[in-house]
């Protein structure tokens, strides 16, 4: 991960760039973050590189992943009546984009959904023990959270999402070996 030598124990340029782009795997991201928490020089580099770049590379990457996932769902729904099932989702995984984090299926990033019809669906992650789903509003307040062993969940009817408002959702994947990973936050807007 770092330069292998006593003189320069800092992060490699390629790894810094990949971290800024959000394209390192979960395990590597944890190692990078552990190093950054202790190394002010690498932290400073990360901060300045991020300031020098004009766009949020990481956000673009997530949008691309979400668009890809949405396209896959659409294909499956058109191809087979009844919508995606668990076996369908694993076939999407088999389709194989190299995303190291746990990708979501629906609502896709930036999607517009009807208030009474929000259903969260994400890819299964090998070695998972449980999934924790969190829904927050625009201010980051947690609107609803629950745990599930399945890869889809619908909020109880008592959970009120307001029309015209932006919401964020994320899934934390709790792995059997005690580690965890996450989908990161994805936004959707409820139709007025």
């Amino acid at each position: 991960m770092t330069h292998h030598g006593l003189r320069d124990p800092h992060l490699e340029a390629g790894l810094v760039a990949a971290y800024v782009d959000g394209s390192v795997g979960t395990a590597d991201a944890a190692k990078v973050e552990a190093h950054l928490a202790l190394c002010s020089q690498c932290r400073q580099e990360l901060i300045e590189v991020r300031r020098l770049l004009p766009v949020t590379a990481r956000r673009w990457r997530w949008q691309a992943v979400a668009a890809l996932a949405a396209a896959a769902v659409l294909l499956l729904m058109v191809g087979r009546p009844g919508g995606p099932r668990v076996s369908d989702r694993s076939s999407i995984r088999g389709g194989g984009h190299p995303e190291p984090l746990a990708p979501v299926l629906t609502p896709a990033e930036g999607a517009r959904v009807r208030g009474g019809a929000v259903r969260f669906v994400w890819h299964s992650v090998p070695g998972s023990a449980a999934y924790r789903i969190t829904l927050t509003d625009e201010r980051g307040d947690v609107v609803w959270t629950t745990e599930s062993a399945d890869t889809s969940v619908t909020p109880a009817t008592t959970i009120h999402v307001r029309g015209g408002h932006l919401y964020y959702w994320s899934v934390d994947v709790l792995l059997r070996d005690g580690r965890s990973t996450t989908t990161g936050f994805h936004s959707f807007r409820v139709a007025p």
Partner: protein
Amino acid sequence: MAEDFPAELAHVLDASDARARDLAWSAFVNAYSRLLLHVARQVGRDYDMAMDAYAHILEQLRGDDCHRLRRFAADGRSKFTTWLVVVARRLCLDYLRQRYGRARRNGGDSGGGRAVRRCLEDSLSERVDLATVPDVGALGPEGELIAVEESKALAAALAGLNPRDRLLLTLRFEDDLSAREIGALLAYPTPFHVYRRISTLLASLRAGLAPRRHQESEPPPLNRSSER
């Protein structure tokens, strides 16, 4: 990331003769000079320094048969422009250090997150009833021992956090970054999410340390047994 491998770079690396290399290099410089100048201007302190640094970047990128650019081709985990910014910034800093000496740094290494610990200690002390806290100064060596123990407990609590949360607290309290900047670095959707996460982390650290404080405010049992 094959889709992020730009044609200008491929032409430079694949050029078969000197003329083709020169042409490919010109095209590469045309494509990326704005980005490289932007980096040089941010790192160099004045115009001349920035232009010297820019020339140094180009020289180093082309030198030794473009070995630096070939390194990206072999790695390729990130977008080329992101990688180029990291490498160009490093080259600028190396050049400026060689020419003008090492700049004095404001911080230095974290020393295990001293600033984070200090901030958390302050934050904790605001929420503890002062009457229950022994006067560390008045207690002499015993007080110093308590302070050391508290600091160790806090360090252990911080070490128990996952790396991402530790980095979040470090960026906030050590580097004094705004929630917006932290959000951009760590992919939180809004600054509010950053604030929420920090509040949650501080609350859990407080909860973990509060029982210890109460125990320490009681007279040590060893003293009582020695009085018998």
